[in-house]
């Protein structure tokens, strides 16, 4: 039952996470900021609008937003309840999760290229570059979790981690959390990698790929992006919550509180850091990969 709550809370509350980030940034800047539930209003407004589809596009452009949303919902359904039940998912489902994310990215990039706009092509190129660096980091991180916990599915991994594992391999697990966080910022186009607020086509990454989408399609993309941030946030929060070893309702409450903290943390990073130059961002992602490798080596040593 708490698993269902976790899943539903993700689907319903994902836009709030964006609101928390906006509020945190506003608090740092001394403004009052947009309301916490602003994104729901935005989504409702977009859904009521008509949409314009460029004559140069093909069916790829039209189906991509829907498919991306469906895939992201599937990813959320895979991740969110996994902590509540070890039997959720299947052997090797973390590879499936990466496949889902990769497929969603492939569709977004294809639809961006389908418009024939040179700006969108640039954004697509950057997105693919980032993902080429972030996917190995993510996979090695899952490798560490599988090794430390002995489970081969997301549910099994979180189930296999407990106070004892944190005591013996806590440093490796902390490094995994840090690597997850860097990858989350990159995959969701948050600040050191991309500024979601900028509207200069030359420098955008994610926003530039969806420039041509409007109306309900854009609503699906916006909601999908919020959900993707929620999925990555739950990866981190679930991992850290295994140290407490709670179950049932206290755990569900701690999970939501943890997601709130993730939102505040992302907002803080965005407020205190400047965006890195495009040439520098791959170094940071390579750093995330290096941290993941370090965690893996440490985990082999700690668990001898």
């Amino acid at each position, binding site marked *: 039952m708490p698993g269902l709550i976790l899943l539903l809370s993700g689907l319903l509350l994902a836009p709030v996470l964006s609101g928390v980030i906006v509020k945190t940034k506003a608090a740092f800047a001394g403004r009052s900021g947009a309301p916490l539930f602003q994104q729901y209003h935005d989504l409702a407004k977009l859904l009521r609008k008509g949409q314009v589809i460029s004559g140069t596009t093909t069916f790829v452009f039209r189906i991509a937003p829907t498919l991306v949303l469906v895939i992201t919902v599937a990813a959320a359904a895979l991740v969110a309840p996994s902590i509540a039940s070890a039997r959720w998912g299947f052997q090797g489902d973390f590879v499936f999760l990466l496949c889902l994310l990769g497929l969603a990215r492939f569709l977004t990039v294809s639809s961006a290229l389908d418009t024939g706009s040179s700006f969108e092509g640039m954004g697509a190129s950057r997105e693919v570059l980032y993902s080429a660096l972030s996917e190995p980091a993510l996979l090695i991180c899952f490798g560490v979790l599988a090794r430390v916990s002995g489970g081969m599915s997301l549910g099994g991994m979180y189930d296999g981690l407990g106070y004892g594992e944190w005591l013996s391999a806590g*440093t490796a697990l902390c490094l995994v959390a840090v690597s997850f966080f860097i990858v989350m910022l990159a995959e969701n186009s948050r600040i050191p990698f991309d500024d979601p607020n900028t509207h200069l086509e030359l420098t955008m990454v994610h926003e530039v790929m969806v420039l041509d989408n409007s109306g309900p399609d854009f609503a699906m993309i916006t909601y999908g992006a919020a959900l993707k941030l929620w999925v990555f946030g739950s990866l981190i929060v679930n991992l850290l919550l295994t140290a407490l070893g709670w179950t049932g309702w206290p755990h569900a409450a701690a999970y939501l509180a943890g997601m709130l903290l993730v939102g505040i943390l992302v907002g803080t990073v965005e407020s205190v850091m400047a965006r890195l130059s495009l040439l*520098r961002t791959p170094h*940071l992602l*390579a750093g995330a990969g*290096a941290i993941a490798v370090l965690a893996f*080596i440490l985990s082999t*040593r700690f668990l001898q």
Partner: protein
Amino acid sequence: MTAYLDIILVALILSDFILLGSGRLGNCIRIAAWQGIMVGLLPMATADAGLSFRIAALGMAVVALKGFVFPRLLNRAIRESAGSREVKPFVGYTTSLLAGVLALSASFWLDGRLSFPLQLESAIVVPVSLSMMFTGLFLVVARRTAVNQVIGYLVLENGIYALSLAIVRDVPFLVELGVLMDMFVAVFVMGIAIYRINMEFDHMDSNRLAKLRG
């Protein structure tokens, strides 16, 4: 105690990674200073018989020298040499990071092959210090500015210090002070050398020293 030791050792590796990946000299000096402070705290974490005055004094001396005196000297060197504050690497940052990861894996592999006759304090202290030595050497070879070569030398020395602490847990006080004195003189001399190079040539690009003509 092992938990603190492991955290310090992991922080040392992370500081190596930052040194390999960062492009600003001032940043590199700051990270090297933090690394010196962490290395200075190592003997306090390894001392299982409690803190003796000798160990505390030694740690304090290391922290003061590596954490505060050396960075000040290096900062003065780059301030007076008013040149570029970029690292100017021969090997790119991402490749450097890759080399760092390779060095780390190599030292863990090497550690698996070596068998130490004595009981070590932590399972990762030997490979971490080996990888610090490799990283230090790499920084000396792969960076163009003289200041960064001094930093590489410092990292190398930090690795040696950590390894000696791991193997001979009880370092004679005089030997330790002698090593620190050597370091101090080395950094001092290099600082002066950088200053002189800069006075003569308007830059501190050690690569171009190869083209000196009489």
